[in-house]
């Protein structure tokens, strides 16, 4: 068979432990490395959210362990406001960059994109490896920002001083994950956390940008160049379309953040005035070292990246959801073409709506209206996707497995969180809502929790392929129901708080009479959050336990149709043991009339094809 020619330049399976598991060129190992990075980062991020909830609900309570760990940030165990702000900042940064960007794309995309298009690896395995290690370096740098601002010894060490001196009073910068200038641009004068920690924050994000760019370039090239015979674009699983669109977004938006980051770092270290206006007053002193910069410029650069970033987080979740829904509904995905165009439309529109984050920045009403109309028009492709998901479920004999539950949960959360996007996308409604808990609830539901549900669906679905064993269904279902109810208990009340006018990023509300009445709700949210967070430990346990003790899975345990299910579980080093599969049909051929099974694999030739026998190039559908 002519496929075996590929052996000429296929890289052989590495023998040594380091090349096999650490500095591996294998996209599957790199994918798992990304997932492990996300699993570690999400622990840090969740711990921070629990601390924030503790502070919000029981502001005066002393947590002695915090007093021991952070003597100046939480003196006597009571978190001070700056400490809380830095928790907000680092929670956001770590979650958005190191969880929502790494796991869906770098993790699952890396592992499954090449297999699903029938390639033996990524186009540039070395770049792939580099992209992970660069991203990991970025994670270490962001952790360094935590320590340099959280610990006096490190803040005053030679390293801390060389980086601009940490405060030791927080656990990172205090300016939020958006790093708005001038707070982020003037150095320690802006308060604790804004010294070395802020420098490290910028450096970490810049490193992250480089890692993501390497990954994005690799994804697009792989998809365009390495599809196997018969895998036309319109036969690709929707997951591949989602990863492809995500990669395009990353390729075009991360450079803008990188450029902005360089400008911000120059403002801080060299004394340029890109973002810092003249005559700023900090405390009792006037800042004379800068003149004429534009803080709004930073907002434009940041949100030009920031809005596509939201889609970078959620599009892979949409892909996984479509894939899982179709598989367990045992029906073809409803409107495959419409789904593809909707993904692309969302990605494209995502580049023209960044202004809706800046309605209160004093922009012209005409540009605000343009941004508003474009923003609302994203509702159209989003609705196309939602109705197609519902159409897929309609009249189906659904198999309610754990991945299916999470996929349905994704649809629910996407609708619940997306609908408030229509509220916030309108200038007049956004003005009073801006920077309230309403915004917080909106984006946590739609880009935070929904994306994570997409990833839960993905991990429960693909775990048997990745490790050859099922994850425990019983634990999975408990995990799903508590998490699903939990996130609604957390974020629905937040909408109410926002409408009452509760502002984001405040560490205490006691002194505001009109908010004091909301305190029981705040406590309720905190309890829900703490229960939900601890439920995730069940998921971690399930992951580790199932990898060793889970029920054994075959090559195609879910009776799915796409290429990853044609190979062994886990797949061999080159994915298909030297013989690339040939594709004869679309990805979601379930319940085909007249077919012997209720699913037809993509590699299965039609009857007419089989009658021709080994004509042409001599390819038959190849199955293991």
């Amino acid at each position, binding site marked *: 068979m002519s496929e075996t020619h590929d052996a000429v330049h296929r890289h052989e399976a590495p023998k040594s432990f380091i090349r096999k598991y650490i500095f591996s060129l294998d996209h599957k190992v790199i994918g798992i490395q990304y997932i492990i990075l996300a699993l570690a980062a999400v622990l840090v991020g969740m711990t921070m959210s629990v601390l924030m909830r503790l502070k919000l609900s029981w502001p005066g309570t002393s947590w002695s362990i915090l007093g021991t760990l952070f003597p100046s940030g939480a003196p006597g165990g009571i978190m001070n406001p700056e400490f809380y702000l830095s928790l907000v900042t680092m929670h956001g940064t770590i979650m958005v960059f190191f969880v929502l960007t790494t796991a869906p794309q770098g993790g699952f995309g890396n592992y499954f994109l090449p297999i699903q298009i029938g390639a033996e690896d990524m186009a540039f395995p070395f770049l792939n490896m580099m992209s992970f290690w660069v991203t990991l370096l970025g994670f270490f740098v962001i952790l360094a920002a935590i320590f340099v601002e959280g610990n006096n010894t490190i803040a005053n060490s030679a390293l801390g001083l060389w980086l601009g001196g940490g405060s030791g009073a927080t656990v990172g910068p205090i300016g939020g994950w958006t790093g708005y200038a001038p707070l982020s641009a003037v150095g320690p004068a802006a308060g604790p956390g804004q010294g070395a920690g802020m420098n490290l924050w910028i450096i970490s994000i810049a490193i992250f940008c480089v890692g993501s760019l390497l990954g994005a*370039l690799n994804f697009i*090239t792989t998809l365009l160049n390495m599809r196997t015979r018969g895998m036309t*674009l319109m036969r690709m699983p929707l997951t591949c379309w989602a990863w492809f669109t995500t990669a395009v977004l990353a390729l075009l938006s991360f450079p803008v953040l990188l450029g902005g980051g360089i400008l911000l770092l120059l403002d801080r270290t060299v004394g340029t005035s890109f973002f810092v206006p003249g005559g700023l007053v900090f405390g009792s002193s006037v800042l004379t070292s800068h003149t004429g910069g534009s803080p709004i410029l930073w907002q434009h650069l940041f949100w030009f990246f920031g809005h596509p970033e939201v889609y970078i987080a959620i599009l892979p979740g949409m892909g996984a959801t479509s894939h899982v829904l179709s598989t367990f509904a045992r029906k073809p995905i409803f409107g495959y073409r419409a789904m593809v165009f909707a993904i692309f439309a969302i990605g494209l529109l995502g580049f023209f709506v960044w202004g809706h984050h800046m309605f209160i920045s004093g922009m012209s009403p005409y540009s605000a209206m343009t941004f508003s109309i474009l923003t609302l028009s994203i509702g159209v492709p989003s609705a196309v996707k939602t109705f197609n998901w519902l159409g897929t479920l309609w009249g189906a004999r659904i198999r309610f497995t754990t991945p299916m539950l999470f996929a349905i949960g994704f649809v629910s959360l996407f609708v619940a969180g997306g609908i408030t996007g229509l509220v916030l996308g309108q200038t007049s409604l956004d003005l009073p809502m801006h920077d309230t808990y309403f915004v917080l609830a909106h984006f946590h539901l739609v880009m935070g929790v929904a994306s994570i549900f997409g990833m839960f669906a993905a991990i429960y679905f693909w775990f048997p392929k990745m490790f050859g064993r099922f994850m425990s269904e019983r634990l999975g279902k408990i995990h799903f129901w508590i998490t699903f109810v939990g996130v609604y208990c957390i974020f629905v009340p937040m909408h109410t708080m926002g409408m009452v006018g509760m502002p984001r990023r405040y560490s205490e509300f006691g002194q505001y009479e009109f908010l004091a009445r909301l305190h029981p709700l705040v406590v309720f949210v905190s309890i829900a959050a703490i229960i939900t967070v601890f439920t995730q430990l069940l998921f971690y346990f399930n992951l580790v336990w199932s990898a060793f003790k889970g029920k054994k899975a075959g090559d195609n345990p879910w009776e799915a149709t796409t290429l990853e299910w044609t190979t062994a579980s886990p797949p061999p080093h080159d994915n298909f043991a030297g013989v690339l599969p040939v594709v004869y049909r679309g990805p979601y051929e379930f319940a085909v009339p007249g077919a012997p099974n209720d699913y037809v694999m993509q590699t299965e030739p039609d009857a007419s094809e089989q009658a021709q026998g080994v004509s042409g190039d001599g390819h038959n559908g190849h199955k293991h």
Partner: protein
Amino acid sequence: MATTVTSTRPLIKKGTGGGPKGRVPNGNGGPKRNGHDRSFPDFQSSANRYRIGMWLGLASILMMFTALSSAYIVRAASSSDWQPLTMPRILLLSTALILTSSVTLETARRKLKSAATRAYKPWLLLTMLLGLGFLGSQLLAWRELVRQGVYVASNPHSSFFYLLTATHGVHLLGGLTALAYLSIRSRASQDNQLALIKAQAGADAVTLYWHFMDFLWIYLFVLLFYIR
């Protein structure tokens, strides 16, 4: 032979969607393995990926410079502290050097294309020399400004001048590294057909990058000194 990805082969072919009624063409999904070139079934496409990857890389570099130029335009328009620099004369030399280097590199690439592998390396080396000359000339321009007492933070125009020239210079340094790699590997292209195809793809990708850096410099030069 086309040099660009977009014109090599159509990537989009009609196929079937997710629906159950699948027409079945006999393979030919991806842009590769059309079965004509039996001796190297995968190689042309494996070489193509360097060209695709380079185009994508250029797209992202373009986005970064677009971001920086929009910052430049906004900053120039939004304040009264903008003091335009007088152009250091030596930048004209830089411009001449990088323009020439594009010509020499293109010559090198064509030599390799017509399999004149022996004439390839000298042109590569000449290009590297011109590239180094460009970087040296840029450094001299910086020195001239420093002598005048104009530093990075002196005023917004000087900040942008140093920033843009430095960012461009770093990218050009990357190009020089790639050229060095090509010239080290240039002997291998004489060995066999496979190595030649690979070397040609590499040369295509690097040449593309170099031309882009050339174009980028002209653009930055005009932006910095001819748009007021």
